[in-house]
């Protein structure tokens, strides 16, 4: 489903290279965890997948269902089924959350040549999904993410994911700022979306989230490339011994 081939990418404005020859393959139905120390390029990778212009891909390619997405803008990627749950969701004053959800859902449907949702259908979908995430409808009448707590913002991200039904979900540090109850709700939301035709990339610094979203594969990112890959035991090892040991072992191998 996703194939990242020898990817090199820099900060567009000043040219500092962040991603330095990254290779990663994720299959349909797979939940892949990407772990790495601070500054290893985790968030940058998520932004590059979503198509943020601040980063420039200098070589390599990203194939999604066999096609390169490098020339697609963020909206086209989203309509094609790529979803990024932000580490820091943007607060946008003046744009009501409900209005935003409706525009997003309908623009994606339009891009795929589908009929727009009727207002009753839209409301029903939002109500159902919000209830499973313990989201109060009153919260959705407020401007997008404005004044939401950290936990509310993350739950709102998962709500968007549920509503938009993407094919490739990228969760960037979704666990940061969550207490254990919120973490469970968010993990349940993600797990409910697991399906044979959907892939998920969970980017995290800590192993904790992976107790709730159990990955099929774990990849360790360091200095802009994947240095080692394996199953969920790598995550346990990282938790027990820290990044230094794992990185040293990878370097020696």
């Amino acid at each position, binding site marked *: 489903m996703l194939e990242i081939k020898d990817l090199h990418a820099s900060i567009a404005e000043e040219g500092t290279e962040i991603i330095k020859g990254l290779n990663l393959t994720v299959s349909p139905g797979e939940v892949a965890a990407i772990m790495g120390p601070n500054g290893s390029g985790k968030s940058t990778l998520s932004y590059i997948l979503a198509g943020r212009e601040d980063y420039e891909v200098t070589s390599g390619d990203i194939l999604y269902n066999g096609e390169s997405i490098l020339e697609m803008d963020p909206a086209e990627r989203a309509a094609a089924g790529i979803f990024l749950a*932000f580490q820091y969701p943007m607060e946008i004053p003046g744009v009501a959350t409900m209005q935003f959800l409706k525009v997003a859902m309908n623009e994606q449907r339009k891009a795929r040549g589908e009929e727009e949702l009727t207002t009753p259908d839209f409301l029903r979908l939002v109500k159902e999904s919000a209830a499973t995430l313990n989201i109060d409808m009153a919260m959705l009448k407020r401007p997008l993410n404005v004044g939401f707590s950290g936990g509310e913002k993350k739950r709102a991200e998962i709500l968007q994911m549920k509503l938009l039904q993407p094919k490739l979900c990228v969760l960037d540090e979704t666990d940061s700022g969550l207490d254990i109850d919120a973490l469970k709700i968010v993990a349940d939301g993600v797990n409910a979306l697991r399906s044979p035709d959907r892939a998920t990339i969970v980017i995290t610094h800590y192993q904790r989230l992976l107790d709730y979203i159990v990955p099929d594969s774990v990849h360790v990112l360091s200095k802009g490339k994947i240095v080692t890959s394996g199953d969920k035991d790598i995550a346990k090892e990282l938790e027990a011994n820290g990044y230094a040991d794992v990185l040293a072992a990878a370097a020696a191998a």
Partner: protein
Amino acid sequence: MMAVSTMGTAKKIELTDAENALVESFVDRLGRLPGNADTVQARDNAISTLKKNGLPTRKIEAFHYTHLRGLLKSVPDRDHSGHGEAVSPLVSNAELITLNNGRLGDLPEIEGVQMTPVSSSLQADVGALSLGPVEPQDAVGMVNTAFLSDGVTMSFSENLELETPIEIQSIHGGGQTHTRNVAVFDRGAKATVFDRYIGDDSDVLTSNITQLTVKAGADVTWIRVQDQGSEARHLGRVEITLDEGAKLTLFVMNFSGKLVREEIHAKAMGEGADLTFRSINMLNGESHCDVTLELDHLVENTTSTETVRNVITDRAQGVFQGQIRVAQIAQKTDAQMACNTLVLSDDARIAVKPELEIFADDVICAHGATVTEIDSHHLFYLMARGITEKSGRGLLVKAFVAEIVEELENEELIDALEARIDQWLETHG
């Protein structure tokens, strides 16, 4: 000595094409403009002032960012048989008054509101509308006084609670129109008036002076929307007095226009008076749009808030000048002014001059101005959800101005104004 002798000589200036055209059309119109002897005198004086001084240049401080003499390159013919089409009112139940190419249509009958055509007020022997003298720097006053043909005077009776809004549509189909509207809201009267200037992109010169007297305890909402198209030259002014406990919400909206000068002169004259001034200016093409506010807090315990939001694209130029003057006796004045501008293109320009002139020592007054572009992080977030760049930009611009529109209470009015904003964004956003 040289300076003195230069000053002493009344130097004759050479008139521009536009100024010459104005003077010539005045001569052509002599005897055909309505008015009694006083009116005729006032018109003569206005045109003499224009002949002597010309239109203001940027050397005149109030016109520093709007070099009217240079910007007004030509004026359309005075006599134009153009006829604009009336449009549906902003809210469906509004009572409609039309000024079609400067000619007042039939007046509706509204209980508690006495209305008279300005053309007849100008001719009355008793109780005539007085045009008064104009200052040499007062371009709006000069042009309007000289050429004023019609308008409506409205008198709202004491404690009237008018449920249905009144909409004055000034419709232009080319040529020149010069109108004046006068509204007196008696004690405790409550009313909403829409004051719209509508055109079809034809070449027009319009001037309008609107005089609002809001008496003790009256509560008025006045919505002024200038939407005359890309070729319109519009010289406007709203003159306001607020008595004790009077409350006015004044909304001024401009959708482009080739050259727009909209002045607001307000005086808070009675304790407890409150002015809510809001302005939204959506400028595209080669538009030059200047909103200039002068507000005097003259007595104790008066309040005002002024919020201006500009959205500017293409090569348009916006100007906002806001001057709040607080008299020495006007203690406990509370005035809050903010001007925020969103620029959407590299060549869009904005000049902002907020000024506070405070002579009292116990007041709360503040002003602020920001100029920003669309936040790229906000746009990326929207696009990451599949919202196209154009829609995303539209949502963000809309959010920037809708905040102000949504302060209004009438839902149908909010919808109508937002629909117009959406239309602008669709074409220019």
